């Protein structure tokens, strides 16, 4: 499959910020296709714990990833108030389960700071950097690595 690189953040990029376990994260808005409420998933056999299962997104089968579990936090017990952010990188679509969408941010690429060393290795693997906005710290998630690792860990490969 053709692997298209994630949209490069340019001078003035828009990001979607969301909450996850009391922290704030964001992804590039250009990769977001849809935001929808939680719907029960169909679990997949032999899938890693952070894969919640698959849902029907307008006729195609969309895997949903519990982003909290993926980042090494406690896994989410989804309720009707949780949100799935449908993202796409290249030809692959994945839904990210998050607590709530909080904001749309317009930022300058220069304001992205490197991820502090204190973050866990797992978290650092998926973070591209952090943003300081109005006294909040928002971590920028690199979808490339999230999607890539999901594909590689898609359970029992023969």
């Amino acid at each position: 499959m053709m692997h298209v690189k994630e949209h490069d953040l340019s001078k003035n990029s828009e990001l979607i910020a969301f909450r996850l376990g009391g922290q704030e994260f964001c992804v590039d808005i250009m990769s977001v296709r849809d935001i929808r409420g939680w719907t029960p998933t169909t679990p997949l056999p032999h899938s890693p714990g952070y894969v919640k299962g698959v849902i029907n997104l307008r006729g195609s089968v969309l895997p949903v990833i519990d982003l909290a579990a993926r980042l090494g936090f406690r896994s989410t017990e989804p309720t009707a108030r949780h949100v799935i952010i449908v993202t796409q990188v290249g030809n692959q679509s994945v839904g990210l389960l998050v607590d709530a969408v909080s904001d749309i941010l317009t930022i300058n690429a220069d304001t992205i700071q490197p991820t502090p060393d204190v973050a866990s290795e797992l978290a650092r693997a998926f973070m591209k950097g952090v943003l300081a906005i109005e006294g909040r710290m928002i971590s920028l998630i690199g979808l490339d690595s999230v999607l890539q690792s999901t594909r590689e860990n898609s359970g029992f490969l023969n």
Partner: protein
Amino acid sequence: MDTMAAIKQTFFQECEEQLAELETGLLAIESEEHDTDTINAVFRAVHSIKGGAGAFGLEELVRFAHTFETTLDLVRSGQIQPDAGLLKLMLRSSDILADLVRFSRDGGEMDESRVSQIHEELTRAAQPGGTPAASAAPAAAPSFTPPAAFDAGSDDDDFVPITINFDDILGGGEPAVEEQVFVVSFRPKPELYAKANDAIKLLREIRALGDADVACDISEVPLLTELDPEGAYLSWTIRLGSDVTEAQVREVFEFVEFDCDVSVTAEPKVDPNFEFVPAPVAETREPVPALADDGPLIPESVLAKIAQVNAEPAKASPAAAANQAQPAQQAQTTIRVDLDRVDRLIDLVGELVINQSMLSQRVTEAGIARLSEVAVGLDDLEQLTREIQDSVMAIRAQPVRPIFQRMSRVVREVADMVGKSVRLVTEGENCEVDKTVIERLADPLTHMIRNAVDHGLEKPEDRIKAGKPEQGVVRMTAAHRSGRVIIEVSDDGAGINRARVKEIAIKRGVIEPGVPLSDSEIDDLIFAPGFSTASTVSDVSGRGVGMDVVKRSIQALGGRISISSKPGQGTTFTLSLPLTLAVLDGMVVTVAGQTLVVPLTAIVETLQPKGPEVHGLGERAKVIAIRGSFIPLIDVGYKLGYRYEEADPLNSVAIMVESENRAQSALMVDGIIGQQQVVIKSLETNYGQVFGVAAATILGDGRVAVILDVDAIVAGNRS
């Protein structure tokens, strides 16, 4: 893709169509169901291939097509009769032509000796009694398009190859009696061509006015040596039946008035005795442009033909002209569409169907009365959606004809190889199946046909001994039956030698000696892996891959294969295939609170295990006793990791499945919801391959359900 490559691709696509036409025609001639149309169609097919090949400089193809065409031409003009021997030769020639086309497209080396052998035979066939082929074929001369030399030829002549479609010019049929009839005589001067005008365009314009019979006078075409490439030697007489005025007819020639001689005379009524000469004309230019190039691509027959034409003006019967015109009228309006677009449409319609059924379910849940306007409107929507789905599926559907035609070649080749005389009878070629199904049928069918000819039919001497005609018959039929397509391949041979099959099965360890087997069970042994009944391993079949491979590929298509055989009367293989690969018949089951789909093709039976039938085996394994044999029980929920303890077989339903190698297993599920046709959705697009899961689908409630990969689960149980 650059333009040239695109055009070339189109050419090869058209070649495929022409080859199919050619073979159909030849087979029709063989079965003596032909008329002049058929022969014309055959000729036209070869001619078109040659023309196109010339434009792309495919010299080898042009050369062979030309020789083939010459022979066909003699048949067409009635100078040689298509007897059995000649037909066989022509069929083989069409095979060679198909190969040449394929090699031209995909590259690779053609077996030169085969080509030249057929080439020689064709040349011989075209020279009855030593008469040179060309001189024997005056009538054909006009429809001759100079071969590839056009492109190979020098650039200093500014000829542009022009192909005229006779059907366009000759069209027509009888002029209407009520209308006025004009006789137009049209003689272009060289200046007309020099000013880049073109006779064919004028003729087309005339034709647009009404029914036109066009006759070309080629009597002034000089010998090749005396021909001025820039001269004008042709003239036309057109009988135009039309309700236009004489002035309107003249208007057509308005712009070339001074560059040609035109006369238009009105005839009050049709003279039934008027005998025009509807000689087909190939070139508007007085061509033979290849003069400059004396290479091997110009067959001597070109020269001879030109000379011949000069000496003896072509004269074809009006009937022949009418025949030529017909196919053009029958031509179907078709468009070529990229397959991806069709698939996208099919996907969208699949989504529409799911969406619609979800909507219905919601409306029912909301407690809206069945007779309310909403519910009625929804019913209409459902009907429409189904119709749209059917129509869209029909776009992908293609008749099985091409593959049946390919089989006739297989029959010919195998019959030649094993020294049997075989006739292939086909029925239901117009039966339509999904394109992908058709493509993937080619290999299994080839194998079955080979088997039928090689193993199914007896040797000629044995047939005679058995009181059968020496020529064996292999039948291949296709028919639609309750939403599936049924393809049968049968032979009128000796039938399955059950004693021998059983003996071999025991020898190869397929079955244990002494097991009582019914006739049909013995017949089914043919599908066992590595089974081949031929005592010698021949070129043709019996290379160790046998009917088990056939069975596997049919099952992979969601189909089933069965066999029936009567001693002394022959064997019939029956394939039952789905019409499309986009949907699948499945059994919807529940396992550990999840809904799963088991492909129906894998299921043999379902049953409720009873206490005494279930036996433990070793630490964990359990088996179930069914009709005297022990079959492993597999808990699907446990296998897929849906639960950590194996379920109690007595509270489960056992689904007997047959996987590869005819091994039976019993899959334990919690309950069966029902049978349903489901739309197959890929899991790999957004996620990846999952053990035990073949694909996903979306059920009526909008939830995703996984489709079980029965083979993987059974195999996973063993390791």
